[in-house]
């Protein structure tokens, strides 16, 4: 049971959060301008490193805010990041 640092509520059990996958994958400014391949890459492709990984969480059972952390996927060590995006 990870202890995840919500930037607003403090550290809480993982069970209170929803995982949001890789951070910093922005919605394309103009999806219509993308090729099928580019759009498919945005939709379906994400990094999967063994090591530090910037990812998004939502404190869904708490303040409902989204925030980013960097989690080392090999140790589960979490370093808090900015509150949004």
């Amino acid at each position, binding site marked *: *049971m*990870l*202890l995840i640092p919500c930037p607003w509520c403090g550290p809480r059990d993982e069970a209170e959060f*929803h995982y*949001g996958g890789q951070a910093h994958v*922005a*919605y394309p400014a*103009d*999806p*219509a301008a*993308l090729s*099928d391949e580019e*759009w*498919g890459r945005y*939709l379906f492709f994400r990094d999967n490193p063994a090591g530090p990984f910037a990812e*998004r969480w*939502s404190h*869904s059972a708490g303040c*409902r*805010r*989204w925030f980013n952390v960097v989690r080392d996927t090999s*140790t*589960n*060590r979490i370093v808090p990041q900015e509150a*949004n*995006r």
Partner: protein
Amino acid sequence: MNRHPKLGSVDRGRVVRFVFDGREYTGHPGDTLASALLANGVRRVGTSVTHGRPRGIFAAGAEEPNAVVQIEEPFPEPMVPATMVELYDGLVASGLAGRGRLADRPDPARYDGMYAHCEVLVVGGGPAGLAAAEEAARSGVRVILADERTPAAPPGVRLLPRTTVIGYYDDNYLIAVERRSEAGTARERLWRIRAGHVVLATGAHERSIAFAGNDLPGVMLAGAARTYLTRYGVLPGRRAVVFTTNDSAYLAAEDLARAGVEIAAIVDVRPTPAPTDIEVISGNFVTEARGDGEVSSVLVGSRELEADLLLVSGGWNPVVHLFGQSGGTLRYDDDLAALVPGESPQAVTVAGAARGVFGHADCVQDGIRAARAALGQTAPEPPPTSRQHACWLVPATDYTRHFVDLQRDVTVADIHRATGAGLRSVEHVKRYTTAGTAHDQGKTSGLLTTAVMARTLGVSPADLGSTTFRAPYTPVSFAALAGRDRGDLHDPVRVTALHDWHAAHGALFENVGQWKRPWYYPGDGEDMDTAVLRECRAAREGVAAMDASTLGKIDIRGPDAAEFLDRLYTNLMSTLKVGSIRYGVLCRLDGMVFDDGTAIRLAEDHYLVTTTTGNAAAVLDWMEEWLQTEWPDLRVHCTSVTEQWATVALVGPGSRAVLAELAPDLAVDSASFPFMTWREADVAGIPARICRISFSGELAYEINVSWWYGLALWEAVMSRDVTPYGTETMHVLRAEKGYPIIGQDTDGTVTPHDLGLSWLVSKKKADFLGKRSFTRQDTARSDRKRLVGLLPATRLREGSALLADGRMVGHVTSSYLSAALGRPFALALVAGEHTTLTTLDGTPAEVTSPVFYDPEGRRRDG
């Protein structure tokens, strides 16, 4: 009775009766089943799983590999080590042949769970653990001490007695099981502990040596024999041989000798023995334990010593299981000849024998050191770790009776077979031989397996590493893990404000997400089909009502609310007039339908949207995600108001008249109150928002009132001649109209176009979530599965495959009997154009439009 007159701490003043393998015995409070069996002279406790060999009691604690029993009474429980069963009156148990038997009746006991928090958690109440707990508590922080037994807790320490810590997870989250037996309390309690720092003082397990016949009843770990004597006053035999690699077994031999056990000899593999008055055969091995069903003699080279007990000590293994689970590295220490803890990513300190410090005084000092380290204080130098003589195996020509894993019946010969087959990794040998995979998870056999393997391959155990230590450290029952979350409390149950009325009127309930929804209301002698046909007829021909309170409701406010909804929904919501209602569909970015519902425009900057019952939380999360992470510039706020409103759907050609009676101030004629609009009025004297929407194709209203008044509204509706209906009827009515249910007629691979809802997909909007995916190659295919109607010869099963020319082209998503059509019908997702399809059992079905009833939509105006 093999009970010493004075030694031990059992309560001799009281007698406990128990039955083992059909025979009645007695013991004392404070005994374990194992100590009581030994006291009664019971040597054979079980039979081995593969070879059917007799097995006895080998250890005295959680590491017991042999004496695994079936508890029969008070409640059947399989595979319990006799060493961990506290004796109580009425206990009935039997020996096992390696496999237990699950109970065939419900467990009557109760189980509990507790969360706990502390600055320091100490695991293990031996000398190091007690010293660490006492030292940590001195600084005033919260200290929890968990121990398998009931040691005297130092002042200021919260003791969890009879508690085994079984799991060490991320961020110092540990799980422990407390065995309780007080009358009126739960039988076991699962502790979930979050600790600032953990001190592992888990001690060491004595290990065995592989020699011929080392599995016979009467072969016992030397330290275990000493425990049976000092803790329970039990003499585990009359005449013993001690076979050792180290000094600790001498203490066992001397204690047993003083208590009256004749020690035939100490066989010490070391050339220089420790000083003792007992005869020592040094520099030598026990080559075989002999006996018919139990030890009767011990072979030392050419000498045969008569004995009924053979005590073995191959040295001590630090109990590093929890440290390993913490993510800690383990290292084979050549001096200690054992695995020792290395580095852990977590805030944990290991103290005492668990890291190879074996002397009592050293352990106390090490406990104090660990506590200070835990608190970030200056800690004294750690005492040095011990040295051990490595001896794993007695050389022989035949290794088929040199047991390594007693519980899995794995011998040295089996390991040779594995290495002979080319296996070089301990993980592979573990899986090939199954050594270490039994109930005891190799507590006495793990390192022995590695060492025998290393010896065979001519390398050091350090070169082979160790297998992975995983939770649980000892077996845990599912009931303990479930705790209070079983029976009717096993998952949250959500009910509406009208629930008691439904239950009192005989409704059967359907689970929708966590909600209980009325499924149908069978009248006297009605089966489900009859009841549903009656309810459907009432809705199509008269007036009927349903509890629709479970729909998710989200309040959306702010100057950019319209723009926000335009980005989320496939259709335009900004053009909706205040006072009106629009149906909409939400897609994920891949273009697949995710949810549907209505949007009600309450004001220019204010909407109320509904979601499906099961998806309310997911839709709100989806909205928040976009608002917070992609569109923070939009001035919009979303608030769940699902339970603010109780909702009653009033349906049927007679619904307008009933509403007019209940809401005399409301103009209900079609011109004043048209389809897809809402009005506010008192209904049955209750302030209400009435929406003219229809999920049945009939004239219908959804009346929303405060949850507090939901029951009053429903009772007012029911006081008219209105038929209550449930979710099954709702499903039939909507299917007759071809309205899909998201999650039933869709499965995450269906676009609005596939559902025939192209009219809902805006062509005017530059973008909305999912739009780009509609032109992806796969999504734009013309041969995608689409929603169709089916008129089958007989009622189909939902999920049935549909065949065209013997090829599967789709499946049935919804199937019902229709009162209106007077026949069975179905909805299906089907690829390609067909006039008829068949199911696997050959039932033919005509393919039709999914709209079976009133395709012109005349009935919705009544």
